[in-house]
């Protein structure tokens, strides 16, 4: 027979075509295509006038199997010790047939390497649908960036959520925990936070995951032992001190925690501290850290947090730019400017204050004597000596020790009059409890409330509630230490920094007590600065620290400023000093 023959391994339907030049070709196609119409062009057949030969070509068929890659996925365990969620089908808010502009999808972290594992995350339904399907309700619908934060945390065994204060890190963490528990990927979660924030976390869990039972580990040793050993406890909350005190509990754990979350993780920035050591020793499968200030003084802060999150991932001595790249997949950092375009503005006023004559004289004497003493000490002078002088001078900038005069107080009192008259509320920050107590006495006509280290923990919630609800209590005096983190005071429209903290991150924490989600209007921040004093010089240092932070978290290409040096610190007083980097106290 003249022509070409193709054979297929299946039962065949034979169809014949007549080709030009009287050549014939028989084409065998699978039976299923009997209805098809094959068109064969002459050039496909080849040189028709060539000597007759038979060429066989196999078309697709059952013996030419298509390679298929398959994955099966685990299903949520039914034995999870979480109250069962009532399964119901709620109509989504949007048209179910239409794809919304964007779904929030879980993307696998780069640490997940196996294709099957990566596909497990890629193929999960978007968060919006998970919430609907599981009937997970929220006090308010999360912002898109919050959903992204949840999608960031959920698949990660090592994560640092470093959003700026006020963006809702707490609800993002709670919701991610909630999803892990419901998906059966976690059964035992330990959340460690500063003591003043325990009740805040309890409240937030109640609001954002009301179906999850939460156990707070507290009380005397016997009670805590019982609480640590309670079976079927999906979520435990303990403060850092309790965790450090009960460290032996973690040596006896039958199973590691599925997840340990550290809130205000800057608490472990000191690598050698007992708290840091104990926290790092907790057996766990996942490690999440939460902080708005992952880098307060130097890149070492971040390295030490990573010793919990992902040990060995970052190293001391890494340059900030390299550190940013190395940690990029584990760190999520957003600022309000980036994600909350609609948040009311934060207005800064630098109130430059001229010291009163009495203050000026006290300041001059103290500085001269202090500098003289440091100079006499020569090489014996240490950072501690410098700090003592700095603190002394800053206190004089607040109040004259001899007369009690205070130019800042006069300005503050005038501003508070305006605040009170307008029916707004104000927060006043200082680093010293004594300063706050003095302010409370001198501003008594405003009936200010106090919240600092001397206020018992049992009274603190009531004070905050009174500040929020009582229209006659318009002023809250807060210490950076007690009130700088975790408090939601978005009903306050004014923040006064009576004195400046050592680093801008802590100041930002303080400011963001008021400037956060829920803020009804602009927040005015007044930073008092005594002109011609140590406060102005420190302000310059704070600015340099902001640049360091930006290098690591915002712009990997920015110049790699390494922060303060000992020379710069001694330079505050134009003193000769030893060389080498140092760390400031926070």
């Amino acid at each position, binding site marked *: 027979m003249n022509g070409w023959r193709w054979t297929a391994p299946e039962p065949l339907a034979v169809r014949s075509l007549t080709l030009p030049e009287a050549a014939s070709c028989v084409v065998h196609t699978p039976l299923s295509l009997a209805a098809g119409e094959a068109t064969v062009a002459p050039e496909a057949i080849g040189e028709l006038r060539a000597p007759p030969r038979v060429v066989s070509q196999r078309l697709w068929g059952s013996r030419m199997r*298509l390679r298929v890659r398959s994955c099966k*996925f685990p299903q949520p365990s039914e034995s999870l010790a979480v109250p069962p969620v009532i399964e119901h089908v709620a109509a989504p808010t949007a048209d*179910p047939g239409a794809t919304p502009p964007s779904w929030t999808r879980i993307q696998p972290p780069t640490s997940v390497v196996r294709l099957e594992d990566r596909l497990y995350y*890629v193929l999960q*339904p978007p968060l919006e649908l998970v919430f609907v*399907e599981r009937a997970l309700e929220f006090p308010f619908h999360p912002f898109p960036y919050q959903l992204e934060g949840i999608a960031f945390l959920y698949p990660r065994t090592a994560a640092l959520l470093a959003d700026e204060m006020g963006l809702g890190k707490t609800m993002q963490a709670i919701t991610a925990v909630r999803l892990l528990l419901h998906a059966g990927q976690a059964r035992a979660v330990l959340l460690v936070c500063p003591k003043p924030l325990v009740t805040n976390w309890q409240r937030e869990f109640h609001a954002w995951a009301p179906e999850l039972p939460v156990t707070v580990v507290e009380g005397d040793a016997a009670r805590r032992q019982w609480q640590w050993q309670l079976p079927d406890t999906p979520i435990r909350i303990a403060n850092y001190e309790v965790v450090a005190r009960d460290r032996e509990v973690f040596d006896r754990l039958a199973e590691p925690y599925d997840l340990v979350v550290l809130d205000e993780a800057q608490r472990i920035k000191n690598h050698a501290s007992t708290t840091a050591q104990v926290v790092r020793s907790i057996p766990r499968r996942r490690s999440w850290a939460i902080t708005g200030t992952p880098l307060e003084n130097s890149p070492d802060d971040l390295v030490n947090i990573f010793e919990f999150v992902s040990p060995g991932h970052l190293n001391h001595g890494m340059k900030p730019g390299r550190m940013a790249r190395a940690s990029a997949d584990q760190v999520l950092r957003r600022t309000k400017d980036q994600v909350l375009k609609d948040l009311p503005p934060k207005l800064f006023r630098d109130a430059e204050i001229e010291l009163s004559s009495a203050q000026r004289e006290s300041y001059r004497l103290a500085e001269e004597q202090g500098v003289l003493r440091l100079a006499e000490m020569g090489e014996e002078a240490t950072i501690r000596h410098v700090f003592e002088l700095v603190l002394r001078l800053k206190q004089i900038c607040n109040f004259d020790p001899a007369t009690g005069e205070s130019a800042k107080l006069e300005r503050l009192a005038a501003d508070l009059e305006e605040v009170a008259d307008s029916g707004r509320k104000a927060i006043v920050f200082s680093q010293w409890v004594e300063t706050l107590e003095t302010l409370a006495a001198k501003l008594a006509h405003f009936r200010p409330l106090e919240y600092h280290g001397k206020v018992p923990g049992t009274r603190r919630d009531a004070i905050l509630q009174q500040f929020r609800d009582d229209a006659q209590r318009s002023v809250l005096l807060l210490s950076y230490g007690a009130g700088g983190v975790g408090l939601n005071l978005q009903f306050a429209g004014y923040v006064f920094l009576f004195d400046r903290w050592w680093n801008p991150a802590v100041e930002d924490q303080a400011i963001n007590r008021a400037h956060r989600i829920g803020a009804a209007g602009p927040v005015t921040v007044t930073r008092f600065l005594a002109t011609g004093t140590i406060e102005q010089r420190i302000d310059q240092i704070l600015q340099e620290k902001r640049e360091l932070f930006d290098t690591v978290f915002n712009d990997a290409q920015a110049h790699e400023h390494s922060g303060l040096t000992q020379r710069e610190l001694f330079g505050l007083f134009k003193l000769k000093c030893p060389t080498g980097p140092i760390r400031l106290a926070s």
Partner: protein
Amino acid sequence: MPSRDAKSSAAFGFYTVVEQPQIGLLGGYLVVNAAGRPLEFHCTAPVKPTRAQTILFGATLEPYLYGEHIGQALIRKAETLATVICTDRPQALAVRQYIDAPVALIVGEEASIRTSIATPSFTIGTVRLAVAGGFTGDESLVAERIALFAASMPLAEPFERIRQAIDEAQRGER
């Protein structure tokens, strides 16, 4: 209306084919439970017909590739039997003649119905669907089996997951 138990044990298949100019056709089949969570996923190696195959199959090439060659291979590979299989590619309705489950085309802007393959469309809620021609009983089967699922899950959404998964698998190959 299906019972809640029936709903919770039901599985739904989503099948699509991605065309990548330099690579060829990549098939993906996702089986999800009633909550939309993935149970199984299967994807094919790239299929690129030769010129001869293109010529010889002619107009039957696409239905053959989407239906018999890729679709059948994927769906038969799955261990979980889907009660309904959805697709967003009209050509993929051709897979219906090789499997027992009804196949529903989710009619979107890109999935204009080819009358030779699909019956006229019908709607479930706000979603427009069509079934393979010659399988007219499928319409009622699809409506019965997928209505509850479609009430809470946008039926077009899983195809985006499949496309991302195929991309991920392709990246893994490179």
